[in-house]
């Protein structure tokens, strides 16, 4: 075989990867993998609080791909049928569950992403709580499909500042990756 699945499997296992998904994502993917993720956490005897936080970050990350990924498959027959693509990885290391998410974005949107993340990643617990509540009461950001709350919510669940990076693909696209680290309080 030209693709060595065993090498790949052992490689990600060595990195503490519990779970990895790459490809088209639909709401059904979020629901199905979500059920398995909870079951996995239960079998691994992770505490309820840790499980809820990992699940929460997982759903926000997956739904970000659903809403924002600039890489998708569209049916030529039915323009409403489309599937956005991305990658999601959950690993366990040094007392954290790391939830990684990656997808393609437009270069021109890079600054918006960076500014949104930088505006929250170093805030303390109380500041994040205040911002979350203010944003929840406020009006929706123009052009945003989400409430803009998702990122603040993830920052609140992250036991250390969220990490992110952009990798340039070409003149139009970059690949955006973000890591949220949920503390394992089990």
């Amino acid at each position, binding site marked *: 075989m030209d693709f060595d699945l065993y090498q790949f499997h052992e490689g990600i296992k060595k990195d503490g990867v519990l779970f990895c998904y790459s490809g088209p994502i639909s709401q059904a993917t*979020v*629901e199905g993998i979500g059920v398995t993720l909870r079951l996995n956490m239960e079998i691994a005897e992770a505490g*309820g609080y840790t499980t809820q936080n990992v699940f*929460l970050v997982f*759903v926000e990350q997956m739904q970000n791909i659903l809403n924002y990924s600039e890489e998708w498959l569209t049916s030529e027959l039915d323009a409403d049928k489309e599937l956005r693509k991305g990658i999601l990885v959950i690993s366990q290391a040094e007392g954290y569950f790391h939830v990684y998410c990656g997808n393609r974005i437009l270069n021109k949107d890079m600054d918006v992403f960076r500014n949104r993340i930088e505006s929250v990643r170093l805030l303390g617990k109380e500041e994040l709580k205040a911002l979350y509540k203010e944003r929840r009461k406020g009006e929706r950001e123009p052009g945003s499909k*989400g409430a803009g709350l998702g990122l603040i*919510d993830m920052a609140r669940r992250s036991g250390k500042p969220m990490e992110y990076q952009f990798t340039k693909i070409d003149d139009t696209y970059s690949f955006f990756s973000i890591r949220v680290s949920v503390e394992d309080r089990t």
Partner: protein
Amino acid sequence: MNDFNNLNIAPTKSSPEITLDADAGLLRIRGESFPENASKFYAPVIEWIAEYFVEAAGRKTVFEIEIVYFNSSTSKVLMNLLDLADYAAGEGKDVSVHWICDEENETAIECGEEFKEDLTHVPFAIVIKKNG
């Protein structure tokens, strides 16, 4: 109430069971809530509840919320719904909120407390269910 149809929505894997019963004065949301598009999913619910509070002058109303997990866009919608209840209570209507959660669901308890802090008029009880 006349000409006011109840609204019932069956649960799915990512959306809650919704029971809006005008005659019983019961508004209930129960289950999980992370639909793909929360504002679209909840649009008929918001419309129903807004209209209900206009019509339900002297009626005793209980708004029961028992959600295991909800995503951030649902959180925004819940705030809108609770604001409607808060406004109705501010007008003197007999409405109360019961936020129901499992004793082991620390996240849900915290979420209830954070909603409660952002409301002014409506009585808001956090009801913690014991296991076993």
